[in-house]
């Protein structure tokens, strides 16, 4: 069906809503996380069982619900029963008891780790309770492959409002007033960017969506494209109208096959419905979108490199004395925004800039999606208002650190972000506040580290990633990072000298000041921030030649505690290097000459008898 105007969209929505509102639904998460926990098998089984038992219920495979750690996840509506960690063997019982009779199966409910209480509804779970889901509101509700689902929930109404009531300038004014800042890392005011692209002269203009999401540990953009692709398309349509662009591109990471599949399907559907193409909804707006798969290079997330890549070149950034809003793709004015930024646009138009502007802090408005990962109980994707404290995120939403370990640091901002220590846990997530702590917002990865993490090694790890991903075009980044990495490696090997710390700082500052693009300009952050907050750990490595968390291999050894060892021989059997000696029921010993410190004995010992010293 090709929609020709606003009234038609409204009547289609009413019709679809009437048709679907009476039906009960069961949503099974089909995001990458749950698929990795074999949710696809469950879906097949669920479909089969429901058909066999002849139950009147709609089965939906939705996008990510967020609590990936406990997947596969399922929600039965309207009761809102939330099941987790579902196994194929549970399906029969779910269908029989819950889908047929509305009964709740205790075993599959979420258990509050504090109180031990079983919680039935998604919203009762502390992980969800403190979140404010705007951009993610429909993830987990709608079937991303169905444009109808999106339309029922009010989808494309922001577009129709823009087309019928607003001028391009008014749209830009609204986005400016909302205070929205780019979610891709830089935090540039979105309305301001749109305005400069609108006024830039050019025979044609582009809007581009950055879905390269190269930050390891962050996957919100993927989940949005997978779970609610039409919201991104709608945002881009509104942007195209405001800026005056006819063509759009989505540059998506090649490692995200499901996101690619869903966005391509959504674009094809939008075309069929007359929401992309010529004279959209009977208006003067003509706009279409093409999808390009990236090649797996982190630097291609940078705006100028991304545009090089779209044109078929290696992704090497250029200096930005001329902005891409004036000369970007094919030297034409190009407006690049991140996936999450685009998905915020329909919300701002629908609810109004004044409403949006009330959420967040003076400098950072709206919500932000974070991927809360690492050493935290509830890992997954969360959406919270800007200004929430790191403590609330890690301890209330994340449920704290597993295994009774102590919190050590939280790393924000992607590989070139920084590590924030415990004393700043009450600081809030806000673009400027994170920057003032020597880190940054980045795209929203929050990696929690506990006392078993060695901060020197963490800095070395990030630097090794950045050395690998530096494109090599400018010397400070190419050579400077390499120098930083070799010093850090030396320190982790126990060969560090005290002068190294000054050298790290000096080289770090130099790379920051003189690199060509933001990759190099931020790359020393992991070193500088750990030096700022965890200097003691560096000194321990350099002076005492020790790594207390037991990570840097040259600086600790495994030893068996004579008191605790029962002589069960498990470690001896499991050691792949035959480095453990000792007879049954006798205390075992580790031959340090043979031991490579793989840690298997430490992991398998049931008596806590293997120690790191």
């Amino acid at each position: 069906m090709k929609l020709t105007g606003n009234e038609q969209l409204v009547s289609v929505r009413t019709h679809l809503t009437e048709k679907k509102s009476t039906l009960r639904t069961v949503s099974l998460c089909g995001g990458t996380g749950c698929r990795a926990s074999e949710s696809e098998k469950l879906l097949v089984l669920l479909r089969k069982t429901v058909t066999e038992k002849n139950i009147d219920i709609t089965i939906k495979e939705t996008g990510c619900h967020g609590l990936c750690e406990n997947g596969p996840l399922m929600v039965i509506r309207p009761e809102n029963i939330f099941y987790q960690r579902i196994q194929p063997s549970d399906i029969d019982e779910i269908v029989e008891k819950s889908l047929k009779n509305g009964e709740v199966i205790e075993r599959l409910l979420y258990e509050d780790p504090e109180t031990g209480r079983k919680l039935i509804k998604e919203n009762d779970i502390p992980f969800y309770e403190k979140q404010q889901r705007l951009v993610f509101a429909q993830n987990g509700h709608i079937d991303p492959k169905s444009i109808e689902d999106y339309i029922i929930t009010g989808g494309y109404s922001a577009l129709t409002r823009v087309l019928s009531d607003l001028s391009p300038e008014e749209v830009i004014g609204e986005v400016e007033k909302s205070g929205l800042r780019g979610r891709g890392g830089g935090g540039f005011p979105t309305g301001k960017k749109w305005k400069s692209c609108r006024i830039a002269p050019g025979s044609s203009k582009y809007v581009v969506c950055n879905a390269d999401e190269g930050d390891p540990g962050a996957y919100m953009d993927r989940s949005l494209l997978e779970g609610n692709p039409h919201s991104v398309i709608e945002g881009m349509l509104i942007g195209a109208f405001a800026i005056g662009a006819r063509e759009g591109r989505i540059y998506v990471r090649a490692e995200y096959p499901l996101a690619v599949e869903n966005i391509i399907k959504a674009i094809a559907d939008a075309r069929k419905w007359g929401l992309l193409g010529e004279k959209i909804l009977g208006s003067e707006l003509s706009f279409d979108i093409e999808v390009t798969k990236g090649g797996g290079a982190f630097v291609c997330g940078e705006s100028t490199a991304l545009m090089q890549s779209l044109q078929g070149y290696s992704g090497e950034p250029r200096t930005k004395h001329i902005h891409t809003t004036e000369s970007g793709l094919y030297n034409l004015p190009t407006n690049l925004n991140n996936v999450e930024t685009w998905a915020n646009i329909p919300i701002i138009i629908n609810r109004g800039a004044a409403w949006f502007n009330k959420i967040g802090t003076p400098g950072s408005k709206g919500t932000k999606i974070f991927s809360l990962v690492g050493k935290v109980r509830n890992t997954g994707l969360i959406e919270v208002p800007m200004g929430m404290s790191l403590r609330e995120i890690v301890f209330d939403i994340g449920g704290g650190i597993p295994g009774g370990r102590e919190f050590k640091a939280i790393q924000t901002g992607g590989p070139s972000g920084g590590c924030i220590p415990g004393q700043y846990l009450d600081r809030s997530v806000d673009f400027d506040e994170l920057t003032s702590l020597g880190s940054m917002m980045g795209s929203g990865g929050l990696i929690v580290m506990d006392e078993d993490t060695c901060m020197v090694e963490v800095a070395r790890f990030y630097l090794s990633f950045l050395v690998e991903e530096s494109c090599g075009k400018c010397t400070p980044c190419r050579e400077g990072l390499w120098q930083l990495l070799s010093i850090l490696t030396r320190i982790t090997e126990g060969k560090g000298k005290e002068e190294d710390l000054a050298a790290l700082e000096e080289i770090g500052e130099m790379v920051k000041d003189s690199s060509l693009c933001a990759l190099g300009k931020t790359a020393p952050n992991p070193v500088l921030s750990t030096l700022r907050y965890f200097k003691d750990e560096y000194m321990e490595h350099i002076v005492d030649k020790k790594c207390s968390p037991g990570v840097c291999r040259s600086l600790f050894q495994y030893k068996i505690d004579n008191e605790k060892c029962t002589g069960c021989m498990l470690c001896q059997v499991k050691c792949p290097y035959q480095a453990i000696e000792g007879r049954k029921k006798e205390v075992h010993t580790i031959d340090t000459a043979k031991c490579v410190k793989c840690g298997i004995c430490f992991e398998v010992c049931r008596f806590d008898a293997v120690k790191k010293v």
Partner: protein
Amino acid sequence: MKKVGKIIADFPLTPESLIPILQEIQEEFNFLSEDSIKKVAAGLSLPLHHVYSVATFYNVFSLKPKGRNIVKVCMGSACHVRGAGRILEEIERSLGIKNGETSADGSFSLETVNCLGACALGPIMVINKKYNGHITPAKVEKIFQEFTSQ
């Protein structure tokens, strides 16, 4: 298998098609042979050095043939803090090959990736398309035993 010539012919012969064409060849053959790189350069009328530079710039391309089974270990930050480094070593030991290598009999290739977007399940290893989450060094051997016995 689709021929390289056919793959090239499916795209508009413009410079923007270079990366998508190489991606499809990579997907079809698991690597970019010298011959295919030359054919692409000729097909798109691009200098060979340009095609070679793109083929070596992006991580998805490989100039070496790969094994029948591809093992990918996530080395992203979330997996790293949960001990991915030690897991990689265990896999290297278990398969008898280093990261980036292919076993002599062509059965396995071992690669690392920078995040599979399933960080909540880290540390993660993917064998072909199958995700194995929450891996510990002690589990590695068993996963491969099960895999080869299937």
